């Protein structure tokens, strides 16, 4: 079918609005996550753009006193050994052989052991976990800022998204804005002890300005990409700052 060269009023309007959107949301001129033509995912993207545009810079989530630490249930996957023989092997050896693979848009792709991670300057924070189900819990998390690991690997200027792969088969990503937030850490300690298996051993992500399930457990690989990588519509919002 031959494409008409005539610019219709509708096309002009759509192009104009899209252009205005780009001007209004400069930081979001990079492609936003796919909306799958689904009105719910379009709403999610609107929330993403609105929160990135309207909320003040890299404000920190509230940190609490040690006495505020509360009970915290473990939900979702609570032991990936059911799904992964590799994880089962690592667990038997107290994760001494665990390696975190870092690849993608970085100058020095490679692997880090748990001991390597513990050599970085650590950060400890007592923060509140907001679960999408409606509950909250306060816990102390110790780990290495994700920004330190990304800079250690030499993240390229073109990198825009950080993708995480876990032993229970989950893949998810965050933008650089959240990746470089000071409270975004790869946590190996919880409440003063090593992270336990139900809570994501040996290393989980803590991302304090999004809903709990974005703080992925059981991480084994980090991949930096220049574009948003579509891991498929899982029926949930990709951005969960709300």
């Amino acid at each position, binding site marked *: 079918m031959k494409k008409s060269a005539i610019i219709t009023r509708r096309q002009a309007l759509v192009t104009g609005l899209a252009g205005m959107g780009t001007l209004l949301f400069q930081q979001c001129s990079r492609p936003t996550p796919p909306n799958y033509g689904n009105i719910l995912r379009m709403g999610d993207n*609107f929330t993403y753009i609105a929160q990135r545009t309207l909320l003040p810079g890299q404000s920190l989530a509230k940190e609490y006193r040690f006495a505020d630490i509360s009970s*915290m249930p473990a939900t979702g996957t609570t*032991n990936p050994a059911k799904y992964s023989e590799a994880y089962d092997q690592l667990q038997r050896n107290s994760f001494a052989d665990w390696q975190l693979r870092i690849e993608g848009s970085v100058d020095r792709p490679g692997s880090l052991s748990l001991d390597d991670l513990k050599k970085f300057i650590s950060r400890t924070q007592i923060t509140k976990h907001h679960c999408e*189900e409606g509950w909250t819990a306060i816990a102390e998390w110790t780990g290495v800022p994700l920004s330190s690991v990304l800079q250690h690997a030499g993240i390229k200027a073109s990198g825009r998204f950080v993708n995480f792969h876990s032993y229970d088969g989950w893949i998810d990503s965050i933008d650089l804005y959240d990746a470089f937030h000071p409270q975004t850490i790869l946590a190996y300690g919880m409440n003063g002890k090593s992270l336990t298996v*139900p809570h994501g051993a040996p290393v989980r992500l803590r991302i304090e*300005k999004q809903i709990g399930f974005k703080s992925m457990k059981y991480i084994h690989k980090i991949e930096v990409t220049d574009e948003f990588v579509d891991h498929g519509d899982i029926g949930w919002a990709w951005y969960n700052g709300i």
Partner: protein
Amino acid sequence: MSHPVRSNSRHARWVRISHGVITVSFLSLAVTGFYILMVHPRLYWGEVGNDLTPAFIELPISRNYKHNGWDEKFAYFDTSGSPVSASRTYDIFNENGWGRSLHFLSAWVLVITGSIYIGSGLITRHFGKRMLPSADSFSFRNLWREFIDHLRSPRSMGNGTQYNLLQRITYLGVIFVCMPVVVMTGLAMSPAVAAGFPIIVSMWGGTQSARTIHFFASIAVELFLVVHLVMIIITGFIQNMKAIVIGK
């Protein structure tokens, strides 16, 4: 106690359109809000609340009610009364994937339309002229008498867009108290908003207090909706619907 009568008083177009949009978005919020509550039908007070801490209210509205599907608890610290952890072993009801997204999409529609409505109402002095009771007409005694009159003979209470004292106070309460409380407590539950503006959480006494107030304020608006519908039907359904849909 008489309010100025204007015989050609109709609902303006912007009132009718915003009323329609807000009605649809509110119904969507009520349904999705109920689905979201079903996922964790427990309410708490303060910053923290979860299945391992005591609830203020537990609602028997889904299979997640008191499910007890937990592995053995272990304490985080060696001290007595230490906070605990436990792993869930129960397949919970959870429709939050679409529930949350539809709730927030509807919330955007409600907040944007509501802001336009309130802005237009202030500019056109809609609230001042039609809703704010005159100083001489307002007294708790009058309010109580109208409340009793509504119960005794609700049919006689309708007078189109000339609102009586009870209507005025109720509408102002829903528009300027209940709805702002619902929106603010909803925003308080957003971790990104809470980080940017911590006062939005602390003003309610914590995330879980905000969630509990969000629930009760929403119930208040839903109760208003029920009474509103009953009054619309009693005072002439067809005529009232014409007034709010086509402005006649």
